[in-house]
């Protein structure tokens, strides 16, 4: 068990090193003049020279990387050019919005994926299964930005139920806060529930053929109880994997939804900084979202053990 965790931690460590290195060297080693690209086409030679000095393009690269890494570990991501403040502070202030959006959208997509996945697996090939599965297949072809616009059109322009833009922080009341995040979260959920539903359905169909499900039926337990209490947990390993990948992606991938709905989250910070050529901020955002992604995936790996006692056992045995 300890050996296994150590192995995974080691892997996590290497990936983090790779991630920071790539983020750092991207600015320094790419072909073309990074300083010119960062400064943008309208910049003067002086501006470019300043940026080049800022990046320290003339010093030894490895030394600069180590210096930078040392600062990053201390939480110093440098200073923003535009916002005139610390990059780390800007990221921390945007973080709650992204996390809130993430949690809400994960909850909504599970609320769609689990019932539909279970119903479809219970009666595969039935009318409802066919209807749900083909709707889901069709929805896979809807990009998240199209989904966002469609939902805005339906719910805020046509029905006028929910606001299309504008974020209301928790401090302005929890109800208003959730209301302002509901449509963006629903947009993400409508796209993300599909793969979750599909893997749950196919894993659950396999589980329902297991002997212990027959045994549970022979005990005279009602079908919903068997589906949710006996079959759901053993069928949810792939679901958790996909969910973990999605959460990781959403840390950075929420930028589209944040842009559509004008939410002040990390993703929009990144986009804004790209347009503003605020390279310290861009670097900070990329670093942050990538690390968040890597760590979420690591956590999901660990979560497996708690879902399936057999894997827990393998981990313990692996120690011996």
């Amino acid at each position, binding site marked *: 068990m300890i050996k296994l965790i150590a192995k995974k931690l080691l892997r996590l460590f290497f990936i983090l090193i790779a991630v920071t290195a790539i983020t750092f060297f991207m600015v320094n080693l790419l072909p073309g003049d990074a300083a010119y690209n960062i400064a943008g086409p309208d910049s003067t030679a002086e501006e470019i020279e300043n940026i080049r000095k800022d990046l320290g393009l003339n010093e030894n690269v490895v030394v600069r990387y180590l210096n930078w890494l040392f600062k990053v570990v201390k939480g110093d991501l440098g200073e923003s050019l535009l916002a005139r403040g610390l990059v780390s502070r800007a990221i921390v202030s945007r973080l709650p919005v992204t996390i809130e959006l993430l949690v809400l959208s994960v909850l909504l997509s599970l609320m769609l994926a689990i019932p539909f996945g279970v119903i479809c697996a219970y009666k595969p090939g039935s009318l409802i299964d066919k209807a749900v599965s083909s709707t889901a297949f069709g929805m896979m072809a809807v990009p998240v930005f199209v989904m966002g616009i469609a939902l805005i059109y339906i719910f805020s322009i046509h029905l006028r139920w929910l606001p299309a833009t504008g974020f209301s922080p928790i401090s302005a009341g929890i109800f208003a806060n959730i209301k302002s995040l509901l449509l963006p979260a629903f947009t993400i959920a409508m796209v993300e529930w599909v793969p979750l539903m599909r893997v749950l359905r196919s894993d659950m169909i396999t589980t329902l053929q297991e002997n*212990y499900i*027959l*045994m549970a039926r*022979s005990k005279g*337990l009602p079908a919903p109880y068997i589906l949710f209490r*006996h079959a759901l947990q053993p069928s949810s390993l792939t679901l958790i994997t996909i969910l973990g990948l999605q959460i990781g992606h959403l840390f950075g991938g929420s930028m589209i939804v944040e842009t559509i709905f004008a939410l002040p989250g990390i993703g929009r910070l990144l986009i804004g900084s790209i347009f503003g050529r605020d390279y310290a901020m861009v670097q900070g955002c990329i670093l942050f979202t990538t690390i968040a992604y890597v760590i979420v995936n690591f956590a999901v790996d660990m979560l497996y053990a708690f879902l*399936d006692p057999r894997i827990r*056992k393998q981990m313990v045995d692996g120690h011996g």
Partner: protein
Amino acid sequence: MSIPLLSVKHLTTDIHLEQGKVRAVRDVSFDLWQGKTIGIVGESGCGKSILCKSILKLLPAYAHILEKSQIIFNGRSINNLTEKELNKIRGQGAAMIFQDPLSSLNPVMKIGHQVTETLLYHLKMEEEPALKKAEDLLKAVGIANPSQRIDQYPHQLSGGLRQRVAIAIALACEPKLLIADEPTTALDVTVQAEILDLLDHLQIQRNMAMILVTHDFGLAACRADEIAVMYGGKIVEYAPAEKLLANPRMPYTKALINAIPRLEDPPHTPLQFIEGQPPNMMIPYAGCCFAPRCSLAGHQCRDQEPLLINDDTDDHSFACWNPLGKIS
């Protein structure tokens, strides 16, 4: 005790596969009285498990019980019961133990919960007394340290222990009928005897009826009151155990009896096998389906299906055109 606890009439079950239809159980009828045991014996694939599952309607979606089949449990036909009423019978009236104890417990659920489930659901017991009762049940099936086992998961238990847990689960709501589908096939020999003795003991204690499925004639002969021999989905011979053992009329039964290893045999006596392949149930067969493997088969056997008829005594019936002679 005028009516049987379980009465099965003309039970016929089809399995629909991609390649075609398999009639896994054909026109099976038998009666089972309270406290008695019926042994169902037959080679692998002859339809024993499908028969058991048909009785409790535990079949997969691609299997169908034909209309003419009748199953009367405790004086009540279960043909037209709703799923809810069926669940009541499954939990409380009749319980089942499956062929493979290793896979019939839920791997991600604690033993205690799997035992108490039926108590909570059917008997509406509270959590605390249910757990208490679960411990008693585990003790009753011979598990030494029930209070620890309750918190364990199936993979922490040996095969024999898991089958004991399965028996405890089956007995939890004190069923009147226990269907044991090859309860010991997956276990090693010493554990087999223990489990069977346990079942005997519990059956007498609780006055349960039991359907004991096995492919081992010897085992059925010493544990069952009556034995039904199945071949190709049909009952081909049906009689009280001693009578059948002493006086088999169907050549197939005789072959099964010969296949029992005897203690008095000198060591290294080769086991007797029945020549040939079990029938392919996909292909309809005109005559007796044992005919291709039967040394006594004549052309009537190949052309015309023999019906299950009574012997001169009315508790022994068999389906054969050329029955073996009566040894009296």
